[in-house]
């Protein structure tokens, strides 16, 4: 009997989780202390303490109003994206799935484009609209509508076919791309620039209500997804097998898709499109602690938060005073890693 020995590098979750949380604290501290403005370590930490008032005002401002909100937002968004990525890869039983596969990103981009192109002129005259945030609202609605459409296409009386959903997601993406192309054509240079920057993602717009929304979403998603961890494991064996094990497959699919759409919709409306986190982080999580969703889901959330923190630090500092969109950094970090994974996968199959 032929058997291929494979290196098992897994670490137990009891080691990984504390280690990960420790790393996260280190990253949070770094994110507070590092930035384009030169602020000493001690001053940065002091600025966080509310009753320390003997610091110059601009240091207080930079640490508490710029670095701290971004740090918190990065944690929540990174965790949500990675979590949704892990769930989508389980739902589609395909390690190459990413949260956008259900059409959320395409629809969100289209929503944002409509907001930028058609509402931007209004904004100049009515700045209030901008503070209400047409782009985030439209992005969220766009993402929700396209997910609904993809789900509707893929579902009939027999249930939801993930294969058809996948194809429908591709189709919606193509449709959205065409509409975006048309928008590009009729938009002026400025709207074009705005849109292209939005689609590269940025954590600069961190507001306290936004942070609250993001963390609430994360908490809800973590709780609900972890409850379904075992069912997702069973789902990996196949839909029929999961059904035989007592899993209500149709309701599971619907629940997971809706939750992911909501989660990704929130991230897209708060930060624009940040790619690669949902695709690559679950792979890292599987490599470290295994594909069992009971460990994969918390690990993905942790690693996603970590990676986005690091990416944001790089985005802020590497080309100062220019600030890179964080989506570019995640792509630069994520793409080579993903290629490496594919090469390894190829080696395994030959």
């Amino acid at each position, binding site marked *: 009997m032929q058997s291929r020995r494979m290196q098992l590098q897994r670490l137990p979750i009891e080691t990984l989780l504390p280690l990960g949380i420790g790393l996260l604290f280190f990253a949070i501290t770094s994110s507070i202390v590092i930035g384009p403005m030169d602020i000493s370590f001690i001053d940065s930490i002091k600025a966080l303490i509310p009753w320390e008032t003997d610091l110059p*005002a601009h240091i207080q401002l*930079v640490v508490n109003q710029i670095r701290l909100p971004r740090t918190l937002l990065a944690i929540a968004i990174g965790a949500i994206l990675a979590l949704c990525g892990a769930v989508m890869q389980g739902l589609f039983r395909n390690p190459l799935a990413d949260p956008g596969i259900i059409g959320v990103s395409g629809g969100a981009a289209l929503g944002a484009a409509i907001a930028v192109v058609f509402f931007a002129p209004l904004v100049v005259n009515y700045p209030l609209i901008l503070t209400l945030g047409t782009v985030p609202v439209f992005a969220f609605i766009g993402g929700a509508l396209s997910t609904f459409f993809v789900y509707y296409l893929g579902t009939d009386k027999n249930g939801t076919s993930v294969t058809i959903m996948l194809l429908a997601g591709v189709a919606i993406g193509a449709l959205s791309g065409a509409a975006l192309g048309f928008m590009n054509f009729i938009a002026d240079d400025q709207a074009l620039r705005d849109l292209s920057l939005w689609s590269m993602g940025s954590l*600069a717009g961190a507001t306290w209500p936004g942070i609250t929304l993001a963390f609430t979403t994360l908490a809800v998603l973590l709780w609900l997804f972890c409850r379904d961890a075992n069912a997702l494991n069973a789902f990996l064996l196949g839909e029929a097998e999961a059904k035989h094990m007592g899993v209500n497959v149709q309701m599971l699919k619907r629940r997971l898709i809706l939750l992911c759409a909501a989660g990704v919709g929130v991230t897209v409306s708060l930060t624009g499109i940040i790619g690669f986190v949902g695709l690559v982080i679950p792979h890292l999580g599987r490599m470290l602690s295994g594909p069992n969703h009971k460990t994969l889901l918390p690990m993905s959330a942790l690693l996603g938060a970590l990676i986005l923190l690091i990416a944001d630090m790089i985005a802020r500092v590497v080309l*100062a005073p220019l600030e890179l969109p964080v989506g570019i950094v995640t792509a630069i970090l994520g793409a080579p890693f993903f290629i490496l994974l594919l090469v390894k996968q190829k080696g395994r199959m030959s």
Partner: protein
Amino acid sequence: MEKNINKTMNTMKLAVLASALIFSSSSSWASERIISAGAAITEIIYALNAESQLVAVDLTSKTLVKGAYPLVGYHRQLSAESLMSLTPDRIIGSNEMGPISTLKLLKQGGVDVDVVNSGETVKDLLERIDEVAALTNKTPAAASLKAEISKKVDAIQTHLLTQSTPKKVLFLMIHDGRPANVAGRNTTADTVIRLAGAINPAASTVEAYKPISAEAMVQMQPDIILLSGRTLSSIGTIDDLLKKMPLLAATPAGKNKALATIDGTALIGGLGLKSIDEAERLNKVFYQD
């Protein structure tokens, strides 16, 4: 025209006084640190000899500055912390500066956020000069600059009085492999063409820079084709242009091989000082007598 300028000057003098009272900061005028978030503003700062106050500029001003300045990026995606790390006193830009959260943070951090107009008319330009001069404490220099501009504009008008028929000038932007863009209304090219005393046949049907079909171009029957210097150097001569776009031969411009160039820097950042210079020069090119 003189009266209007005087009136504006008086209002501005008052404003400057008021500003000095309201914004009495501890730093003296001479060591002001200014970030320019627009090519138009950078151009005026240089023209007013206020460049010693400049500490950083935006991306569009890259070609206008002499020496190495930190680039703060695209003016609609400014990073608050990066800007504050340059310890500026003020940032000057158009009303399109953003994002709003950054501007709020800058104000909170004690940096003045000053918005100047971004209009396309000569009047707007003159006001803009006054606004920037007030912010850089160069109001005396502004007067002579504005006088210069007014003189050039007047010279064009005088020259036009000797002409009978206005010429139709079409500005083309040509990129390889894509249809050519024309300058419609609300573009700097359109303003320059009109300042130079010509008519832009695309202004009635096209807004901003848009691609139009060759047939539409022929229908406009331009007398002169206007290209940016960079476009011309990549194409060659008028004959090369006609080879690329053979339908143009059916226009007066094509028949008479009438081609003019404009310095590309006169077109970025809205109507600027260079634009006025080019308008004056082109006026003589269009109408040679």
